[in-house]
């Protein structure tokens, strides 16, 4: 699949630190869905995800580099659907440092220094991006 560019409108959404849903697949095609705290904007062709714990997601990505991420834009009443492909893992450099600084700031306040820790910054290439507008929520959708 060819690469695509991230539109400028997605950057504030990513930088606002909104949680996202991420779907990966194992080598034998078994899917896994998880929630991630933040998708970092690297440049208009790359995004980064934090690798903090050894998890099913990490294992899947190392086996099968494709991933699907859904980022909610609360203010815009929309979500962004991104198809990504794992490219590399960084353990130093400016991207790693920026992500590490934020994680360590939180960890140090919450008594989790050394536990809540960035192991690597996983850099993904953006394969596709799509903005899906939601209908306005009136607050009565779940009313009986």
């Amino acid at each position: 699949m060819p690469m695509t560019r991230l539109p400028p409108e997605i950057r504030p959404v990513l930088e606002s630190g909104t949680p996202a849903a991420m779907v990966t697949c194992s080598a034998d095609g078994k899917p896994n869905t998880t929630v991630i705290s933040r998708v970092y904007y690297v440049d208009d062709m790359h995004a980064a995800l934090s690798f903090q714990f050894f998890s099913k997601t990490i294992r899947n990505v190392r086996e099968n580099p494709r991933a699907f991420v859904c980022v909610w834009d609360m203010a815009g009443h929309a979500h962004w659907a991104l198809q990504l492909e794992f490219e590399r893992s960084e353990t130093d450099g400016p991207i790693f440092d920026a992500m590490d600084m934020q994680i360590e700031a939180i960890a140090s306040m919450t008594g989790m220094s050394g536990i809540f820790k960035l192991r690597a910054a996983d850099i993904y290439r953006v394969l596709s991006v799509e903005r899906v507008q939601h209908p306005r929520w009136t607050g009565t959708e779940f009313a009986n």
Partner: protein
Amino acid sequence: MSNQDSHRTVTELERKIAEVQILQRVSADINSTLDLDEICDAALRTMDELFEFHHANVLILEPDHRTLRVIASRGYENQAIGGRVQVGTGVIGMVAQKRRMMHVSNLGQQRAYAAAQRREMEKAGRGAQLGEAIPVPGLPNAESQIAIPLLIRDDLIGVFSIESPVPRSFGEHERDLVSIVANQIASAIHNARLYAERRQAAEALQEANASLEARVAERTAALERELRVAQALLSEARSRVEGPLLGGSAAVRQLRDGIARQAERNEPLLLTGPAGAGKEAVARAVHDGSGRAGAFIFVSCPEVNTQYRHAGDAMTSRDAEKSLIASRFELASGGTVFLDAVHELPQDLQRALHARLERDQDRRRRGEFEESGVRLIASTTHDVRQPPPGGFLPLFQLLIANRLNVPALTDRREDIPALVDHFVRRHARRLGKVIDGVSADSMRRLEAYSWPGNIRELRAVLERAVLLCRSTVLEVDEEQLNEAVAVGSYRLVSRLGSGGMGEVWLARHRFLVRPAAVKLIRHDVPPGAAREQLVRRFEREAQVTAGLRSPHTVQLYDFGANETGSFYYVMEFLNGLDLHHIGTRFGPQPAERVIALLRQACRSLAEAHGLGLVHRDIKPANLFVTRLGTEYDYVKILDFGVVKDQSGRDATVLSNQDIVHGTPAFMPPEIVMGETRIDGRADLYSLACTAYWVLTTHTVFEANTPAQMLLQHVQAPPVPPSKRSELPIPKQLEAILMMCLEKDPAKRPSSALQFESELARVPCDERWTNERAQKWWEVHAPEVVGE
């Protein structure tokens, strides 16, 4: 360009203009003040206008570089001024550690995420790995936070942090704006701190300057005072030391030779000789001739004594040694310390000084440097050829090993013309007078005079004569000489000795030309209670002695006060020796002689006791053995100065004093114990102690300190005198003496007369006859019987 595009462009342009205006204003505001509060106000206002952030903290890096302290806080309900954040903790701490701006826009969510992770770990039993949550100053419910390091030339000085409870993203442009403001804040804070530091330094400098100026002024004034005092002292010292070494007599030539020899030596030197003979001049000459680089320090031991006694219990002997002796040695470093009248130094200090000298001596023997490289020269008017009872103290033992005698003026009479010439010229020059010389009569008179006060007296007489002189030829008449040393109708001839009460002088009546002994109150007792007490004792002694008629009691001729206020009394002049000198010079005396002497003393005491008087200080030095006409070994009791009147006439005067009178080696136990009812039996105890000394030349008790001695009088049984003498002592004599030495007065003979009759019954192999006494004096002290 569509209308919509052009509208967007205009809006964008307006926004940027507004931003620039805000930045210009904040720049102006921040840079116009050095007040941290005003800087923070301006920064917060800017953050509000630009990003609608209402909460801000400014933190400063502490000198330890591990902590940040909140110095300004805006928008918080509970301001966190003074709150601290560890570098590396939380957003602010991490910004300080990494020195990079951080923007967090989902703090709540991240905290929640971390909290969820904690819960998971606790559930999984890994809670022990978790640390304590650390609170940091700021909004508890902040969603967005930007923290910017405040840097001055790459040095971190603090962190600027703004927070909002609303989630907020920041683009690159907004981050740049925040950075600009942060840079302004950093500069302003830096400037403010520099200004504060410099102002503080300037104030400190000003304060230090003022203090320094005051100290310099104070020190200058003190130095000027010291200089004036030093100049006066130097001038006075020069006047004292000029002259005494002039002359060509054999005595002064010998003295100059001695000085030259002594100048090459380092060990302590004792200068002996009468008062006023020029011992200080000799000490200075030895110092000058030695080429020593240090100072010559004069120490008056009578003054040291006074200071020591005035300090009382407030000063231990160690303190006294430090402040009164060691300090002088420090001052003289490499020079000479001159202890004038060293016999007046308190015994404690003598011991301390002796220890110091021994240390120096050991070092000299080992070829090492001495502690201070100071040479000690001491002077005394005491006759060091005669050790006192119990021997010399260690200091004197050490000092007398190297001594130099300074002759009396009468031993160098041929120097008088040269000395007179010198002093007259000097005094005349000082007073601006022209005096060509001294008349021949006056010179003859000066040469013939006895000069009891030696060169000091000569200088004083000439000074006075020059002052009164109205011609170019100086006249010194008899009156001027007499006036210098006259008391009442008596002219003082020479000093016979000195003691606790004062000095005793040989004197002659102006008209009767009868020799007499004049006792003077010491002149160095300062006015005050001690002096008044001494004067009262003096008067009492004179009155009591005048009332006694026994031929064995010294006869009083006169008493009173002279023009200078000194008290004196004149008593018969006795030619002979006291028992102390007899025992010291000639050793233990035969029992029959002691009995003969004691019986006479008993007769004197019997009269005094009969009048209700107790002597209280009977001792060998107060039993004077003289020749009276053809009678040799005639005893006279001296020194009724501490007599106690039993009749009660003046009992309170003496008995109310908190002073123990007497001499420790001869003191009866009831006086030691401070009993108020003392009778004649106290004197019998002391008389027995005296007899013990003359028979054995040992005191009844021997001790290292007066206190120990006194204690033994109260507690210890005496050793019989026969055990301590090689001469035979009749048993009956020993028995009667041991009876007198009973602690309980009731067990002693009831009176002096009973004691005398007991002594009369003691059988002796040989009798002590007048012929034996005459022979003894002719052999042992021909100068006494020859006069």
